[in-house]
């Protein structure tokens, strides 16, 4: 049924439809609406779940690790400082192989205090063993969140569904909310591969010596590798029922493009309009939206970009001392490809600054007018200070 929903409520609806058993969270702007909706669902009986409000995000995730170990479906949501506080337990949850799903609303890190969108918070957690899925609009948010449970439970890895603060979390859009019956068909009850059993007591997360630790890490790496194909399977299953798919990446007009803009999140939507405008003026420009960031779909990205003369990666994030994080990843994906295109890196929109169509067009022209990148990262829209 089509409803006009805020991005936050799209997440909450997906969590309801996924019949999550335990939710634990600590409020933080701009994520708070998600758990507010969920706490209401729990309180008024719309959901039959335990909602545990704890004293910190660290405790929220710790709670879910414990809950998930008992074999129930779990969910949390956070942003920025809250995600940073979870850091220790992000590693723990992937190491413990519990398929927790988290909605992570991209928000800038302090100081200076800033509640607006910026991807640095989630991208800084790229090495924690969590699957990361970046969403573009409300429909993708609801679909991705439902899929996240199926995907995580399949490979026993936790999943972060990432959405931009305000531009997505607080924007109302028409969203097709799937029927419960169909969601149940897509997402059967969680069948844990291991769980606490008081009849057969054991210790989880015990000491692992050097002669076994590495194998366990390799096992996680393999699970991440497998995720790439499982993601396709999940999308196939979902499309079979709901007739919607997004792809781990989405190439738009890339085949003959001389310049491909690489985007993620809501900037993608603006970019779609920009490339249409530029195409109308005869410019050969394409777009590659990256949805799946972990595992990073290297093969398909190489496939799309190998023929492009130039690539322009748009990063709403910064790894200080290096460059935009998507740019790093794209460069790394291409570097072993003989004759790969030059990668232009642009830093834009940090701390929620608007990324306008004009700015994106400027990126196109800068890339077109330079043979090679002037610098590793070009910061656009900086004011004189």
């Amino acid at each position: 049924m089509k409803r006009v929903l805020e991005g936050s409520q799209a997440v909450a609806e997906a969590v309801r439809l996924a019949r999550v058993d335990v939710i634990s969270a600590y409020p933080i702007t701009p994520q708070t609406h998600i758990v507010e909706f969920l706490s209401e669902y729990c309180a008024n009986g719309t959901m039959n779940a335990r909602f545990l409000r704890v004293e910190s995000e660290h405790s929220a995730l710790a709670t879910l690790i414990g809950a998930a170990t008992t074999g129930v479906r779990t969910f949390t949501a956070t942003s920025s400082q809250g995600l940073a506080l979870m850091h220790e337990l992000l590693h723990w949850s992937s190491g413990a192989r519990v398929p927790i799903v988290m909605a992570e609303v991209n928000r800038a890190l302090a100081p200076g205090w800033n509640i607006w969108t910026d991807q640095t918070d989630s991208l800084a957690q790229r090495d924690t063993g969590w699957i990361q899925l970046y969403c573009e609009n409300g429909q993708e948010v609801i679909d991705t969140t439902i899929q996240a449970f199926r995907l995580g439970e399949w490979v026993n890895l936790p999943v972060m569904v990432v959405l931009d603060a305000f531009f997505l979390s607080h924007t109302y859009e028409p969203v097709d909310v799937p029927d419960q019956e169909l969601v149940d068909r897509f997402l059967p009850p969680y069948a844990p591969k291991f769980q606490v059993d008081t009849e057969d007591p054991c210790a989880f997360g015990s000491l692992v010596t050097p002669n076994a630790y590495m194998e366990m890490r390799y096992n996680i790496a393999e699970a991440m590798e497998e995720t790439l194909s499982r993601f396709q399977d999940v999308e196939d299953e979902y499309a079979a029922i709901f007739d919607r798919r997004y792809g781990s990446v989405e190439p738009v007009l890339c085949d003959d493009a001389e310049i491909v803009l690489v985007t993620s999140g809501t900037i993608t939507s603006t970019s779609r309009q920009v490339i249409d405008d530029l195409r109308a003026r005869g410019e050969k420009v394409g777009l590659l939206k990256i949805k799946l960031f972990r595992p990073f779909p290297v093969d398909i990205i190489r496939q799309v970009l190998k023929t492009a003369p130039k690539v322009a990666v748009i990063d709403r994030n910064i790894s200080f001392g290096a460059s935009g994080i998507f740019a790093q990843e794209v460069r790394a994906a291409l570097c072993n490809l003989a004759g790969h295109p030059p990668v232009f890196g642009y830093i834009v929109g940090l701390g929620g600054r608007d990324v306008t169509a004009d700015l994106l067009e400027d990126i196109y022209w800068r890339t077109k007018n330079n043979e090679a990148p002037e610098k590793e990262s070009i910061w656009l829209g900086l004011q004189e200070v």
Partner: protein
Amino acid sequence: MAEKRESESVVPLLIPRSYMSTESNLTGSWRFLKPGYAEKTAPCSTACPAGEDIGQIEMLMTQGMFKEAWETILRENPFPAVCGRVCYHPCEGKCNRGEFDEAIAIHSIERFLADTASRNEFKPSIDKLPSKREKVAVVGAGPSGLAAAYFLTLLGYTCDVFESMPEAGGILRWGIPLYRLPVSVLRSEISRIEEMGVRIHTGKHISQDFIKEAISDYSAIFVGCGHSRTRRLNIPGEDIEGVENGFEFLRKIREGEKPSFDGLVAVIGGGNTAVDVARNIIRLGGKSLIVYRRRRQDMPAFDQEIQMAIEERVEIRELLAPAKVEFNGNEYTLTVQHMKVAGKDVDGRAAIEPEGDKTEEIKVQRIFKAIGEEAAEAWYNPPDKEENMLTLGNSVLVNSSRGAALIFGGDLTNKTKSVVHAVASGKEAAIALDIFFHEGFDAIESRLETCAVGDGPPLSMEVYMGGPRSQRKRHVVVYNEINTDYFQLIPRVTQPRLLIEERLKTFEEIDLKISANLAMREAERCFNCGLCNQCDNCYLFCPDLSVIRDNSSQGRHINYDYCKGCGLCVVECPRNAMVLEEEGQ
């Protein structure tokens, strides 16, 4: 389609999981601090001259175990209904809760328990030791004598109490006014003592010959004849007719007389007798003026009694020493010398001296002398010094070579003349005699020390008889040893009382009953300092699962094989019923 899919991952799942028991790792060996259960002493119980186990009483009270709580009082004090009413409750002054919000209304709960026991006709089940051959005579059926007989009976002795008045009770029967202690309450306490086997012989003429006779019939004699003669003022005119003794006045009223008063009556003195006399006069139609030579704060009367007297419009004039009484056939003239403070006395009260020759004449209709009492006969008092004489805290024992041992107690020996001190005296005498009979004269002092509550001075009969209380540590819990995070601010119960207007016209008891609900709520405020109330915090907080529940009286023990000595249990014990000591200490 969903039905066709393969849900198993192709990658096997490796997770750190151990089925081995970790019990082989005896983490207790890491410990250098060792927690343990150790019940301690509550400060209230050391402030109670009778050494009542107050923390335990309040705990039983909260559990609705009224009979057991009442019996816990009876182990240390045969007069809960009396003391719940007339005791000046020094316990409350030492209550740790007083530093948090307000002290527990211990006396209100004591009275509630006693009244509940009486209404339900509870029969106490208190351990009595097997009968012993020694017989003890008790002279005087006041609170000290009755307490001595009661505790001696608990210890297995046969006791005869001899009383000159027609009814037992001493000052409780013939001194303390009805508005503080109804006679039915007293009678019920005394009959319970009699039911235990104490024989009371009233209307017995007590003389030195009587004592001489008793010396041959009994192994020991407790002398508790009390102070019943008003001290003389030693001023001109004090023997004029109409200048009366306050103590005798109180007795006459308790004998049933109901004189009426009109106009101003002077009461000379500052003790409880003076205050009681003044309050009786108010009820009989007069106006009372207490004339005291020191300041009001130096008055030896209990503060609460003074407060109530003032509420009842008793006037108090301080720093006035009586100098002379004259009577003109119509009214008395009391000449008083104005006094002034001149430093401090040895006991901390103001030292006074005449303020020049400034005098004042006070015209009154009657005058009562109430500057204190003394023994009615000099021979009631213990000898000044004699061989084989032992002066204890609240009694004096003389191991007479002529036969039975004599032990003096009550007001005859007590510095503070109060009912509860009389009980303490009777208890001390009973224990001292038991030690004397079985271990000899020389063992008395050191053995008495072993049954002190905390560091004393009160003694515990339960500890002496080896009851569970003897397992407690002597350490007296102080306020900052209580984990007040576990307590909320709750106001103390307010004692309901007769309205002042009612008090002025009647001898009805002033303090009214409180409900069981209020009494239990009040008891719940108690920190139960140093006592375990089975709250289970230690069990809940132990990170090593090393607190193990069991069937012992403690209800749990610590598994030292795995306890790492983190001390959480001790810190989280709200009541300081645990200790953390260095390992190997």
